[in-house]
């Protein structure tokens, strides 16, 4: 097969053009009534609804509420996930104690736990944060453990040969060696937390982007629903950008490969 080199300009033009042409196509089909604007709206109608929502501060407020829940849930899930994952990767004892439990509970859809979580934690913020945390936790703990287990044995020999203490072993071998996989887990966890926020805000929420979607459904305000969806996708993009920046900063040795 011949490998073709495309100019970076062409690639950039294409990647801007394709979403733009979909928007145009959508607008045109709405105008000529091929699609029902009561159900699928149109870019111009959405833009029209967007301005008052932004100016009133309602959109920003709901976004801030959701972002806060995502961040707290993400931190509450990933921190214990990293600690336990490293422990499970390094110690066969810890691994054999926790692995069966995690393997057995991992396949349960986290959404199926929502009613139980609501019963235990009530209708407040805790239940929403906990729902996100538990989804993030599984992805981070599994990836962190795999990351530690994948560290080449030679580095353990080197650490031992150079007399690394337990603390130094964690800091200079186990943690940096597992970091690339930890980040893979964090990125998956971030995607998961955006899925879960919408579900968590379905029940007993009074604000949030997910709540906006459900309220728009109740009020049949399709434009608001689309605005909330776009906000979610922007949030996802921003969060992954932030994680990429963090990864480049924490893993400078990966960047240059």
């Amino acid at each position, binding site marked *: 097969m011949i490998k073709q080199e495309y100019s970076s300009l062409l690639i950039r033009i294409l990647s801007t053009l394709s979403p733009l042409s979909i928007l145009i196509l959508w607008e045109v089909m709405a105008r000529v009534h091929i699609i029902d604007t009561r159900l699928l709206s149109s870019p111009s109608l959405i833009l029209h609804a967007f301005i008052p929502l932004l100016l009133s501060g309602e959109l920003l407020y709901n976004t801030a509420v959701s972002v806060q829940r995502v961040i707290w849930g993400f931190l509450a899930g990933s921190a214990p996930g990293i600690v336990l994952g490293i422990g499970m990767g390094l110690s066969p004892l810890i691994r054999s104690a926790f692995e069966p439990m995690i393997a057995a509970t991992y396949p349960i859809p986290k959404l199926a736990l929502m009613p139980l979580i609501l019963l235990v934690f009530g209708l407040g913020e805790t239940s929403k944060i906990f729902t996100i945390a538990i989804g993030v936790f599984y992805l981070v703990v599994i990836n962190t453990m795999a990351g530690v287990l994948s560290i080449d044995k030679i580095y353990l020999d080197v*650490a031992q040969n150079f007399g690394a203490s337990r603390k*130094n072993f964690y800091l200079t071998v186990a943690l940096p060696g597992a970091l690339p996989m930890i980040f893979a887990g964090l990125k998956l966890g971030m995607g998961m937390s955006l899925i879960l926020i919408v579900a968590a805000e379905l029940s007993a929420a009074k604000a949030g982007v997910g709540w906006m979607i459900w309220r728009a459904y109740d009020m049949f305000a399709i434009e608001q629903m689309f605005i909330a969806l776009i906000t979610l996708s922007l949030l996802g993009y921003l969060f992954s950008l932030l994680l990429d920046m963090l990864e480049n900063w924490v893993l400078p040795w990966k960047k240059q490969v």
Partner: protein
Amino acid sequence: MAYEKESISVTNLSKIFNATSGQITALQDISLSIGEGEFFCIVGPSGCGKTTLLRILAGLDSSSGGTITIKPTNIDRPINSMVFQEQSIFPWMTVIDNVSYGLRMRNIPKKERYEIARHYIEMIGLSKFTHAYPSQLSGGMKQRVSVARAFANDPEILLMDEPFGALDEQNRILLQHELLRIWEETRKTTVFITHSIDEALCLGDRIMVMSANPGMVKTIITNDLPRPRKISEIRTSLQYNELFQSIWLILRDEVTNSKNNSSTEEKKQPQI
């Protein structure tokens, strides 16, 4: 060559592995004495247990019997530092952090350990790459960093497990040259494992030939090629050729023996 002081003393060392098919004697009745400041080479067919012997000396594996004594000259020094056969420098550390790793583990302040590391980085000719990550280095450069890391730690003894085995010929000769130069400056007691007779003759003061199945000391040959050595000059000397010939004759039998053993084992297997 006589040494005033003994650095390493090994007596009746053995190593038995428990495998599913029964016990395998990897090392049997190894006794040797290595002098302070000696460059001691070990050659042998693959599977003769030379790496196992080195790992036991390094404290990375335990022995099944016998004793090892390493006599410290200075209690502040670490006992040994090893240069591994495979790529072993940390990809997540810069060259200077890799070279100063042993010093950091011994809680030597950053300024001091960087100063020491810089000296050895200069010796291996990688000053330009002081703050580079290993992903930016070639295989030969990585192995130079590994050598520098062991020297910078200033141990009583250096253990080298075929450190240049994975390199191409040109790089190998270059690194042998550099190792000779650094060693001649520091005169560290060194145990160097190789499968290459040539490498053992270029570097070693004495060469121990091992036999396989079980790994035993076949003979120890004194290599009195004059120092400082130049690899290009050594190879053309009559003495080199005589020594090469005598080691090869011993090794040849060992290699064919171990080959025959393994081929009969292969033949046996289908019947089981």
